């Protein structure tokens, strides 16, 4: 199991999240957060590996890392 060098301020467990889904969970938490906060989004949805970086770039936040665990991914994002 791989680890990240980053440590999250907020962990969002969206594993198995159906509605509204991991990216929406992340957007909801990032909107109300202070700049500089680091989020770890835990997701079992493989499309998150594309969706999340795509939105992070459009919204001008920072994608720090994507870690592949055995049965889920952790995506580390920093709010700009």
């Amino acid at each position, binding site marked *: 199991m791989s680890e990240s060098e980053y440590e999250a301020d907020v962990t969002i467990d969206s594993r198995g999240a159906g509605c509204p889904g991991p990216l929406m969970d992340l957007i909801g938490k990032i*909107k109300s957060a202070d700049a500089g906060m680091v989020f770890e989004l835990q997701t079992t949805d493989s499309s998150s590996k594309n969706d999340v970086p*795509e939105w992070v770039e459009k*919204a001008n936040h920072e994608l720090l890392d994507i870690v592949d665990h055995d049965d889920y991914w952790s995506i580390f994002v920093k709010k700009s």
Partner: protein
Amino acid sequence: MTQRIVIVGGGTGGAVLANRLADKLDLENGEAEIVVINDGPDHVYKPTFLYIPFGKRTVEDASQPLVDLLDRRVDLVIDRVEAIDTSSKQLTMATGDPMPYDYLVLATGSKLAPEEVPGLKEGGHHFYDPEGAARLRDALAEFESGHLVLSVIGVPHMCPAAPLEFVFMADEWLRELGRRDDIEITYTYPIQRIHGLEPVAEWAQPRFDEKGINAETFFNPEEIDAENQVIKTMEGTELDYDLLVAIPPHTGDPMIEAAGLGDNGWVEVDKHTLEAMHAEDVYAIGDTADVPTSKAGSVAHYEAGALADRLVSELHGQVPTDRYGGKTICFIEAGMDEGTFIEFDYERPPEPRPENKFIHWAKLAYNESYWLTARGHM
């Protein structure tokens, strides 16, 4: 010593739970005591609000007195809980004496927080409470031409189906009035497709194309210029509107964060047992429970059923076995007289089926018979 179960909130979750518990417990002989605290006398069925802007329902249709829906043996207290002390297991009330509990269930729901987006209160309409729905009815009645924008701003929000339902209903309603050719409809959504659930987005997109409904995706409004009628987004884009219908930001009750139970008013819970992560003998159901499914009435309903069984097992000294598996059911109107529905849970994604009149009629029939659900029967 009679165990007191206090349920804060008399909406769908709180009412169904109280009634199911009353059914299973021997309240007359002191097996337990059930108290429901609600901050007003009414029980509101929110799916009614979608029909108000189109003149199909009125505000009065949306509520009934909570006392009429609760089992007679349940104690109803009309008051506001202001603080929760999970170590001394006591609630501070707005007007009454502090209320001790043995088991606490938070069913406080979600509140609208439009003030989180500057200019939204002044510049936008919504149909997420009775006043908003009634104001929108008047604005829509007079709207003859221009750009109608339905913008999903709040993440999360109640009823993820409703934004799609609104644009499908508006499209058909405006056609029926002969105004649709003079009105452009745009729907905006925070992520890269038009709905959080991919099967629902795939079902809806061809219908958008066929009906000429525009979609703006990756669209997260952060400010509304109400004077010039412009939406400005986190992504740096802008959109002009003539009539803005927004799904506002939502939060939970502030006392939840103050009690250390979760951020933004959403209680952190185990998604199967609904037990709070940060306190003993505290549970949450409905919108206020932070579980990985929609903020929907059906979720509150099914959670209440599972939690009632678990609490009864606890009180009987047995190991609880019932679990909430994420079951969610949502009707989706596809116009003024056709609809579909989806059913899903933590394991199975939804599979929308083609819409038809029967499902639409089933939704209308359920809207009438919902009060049986609130009474714990369905």
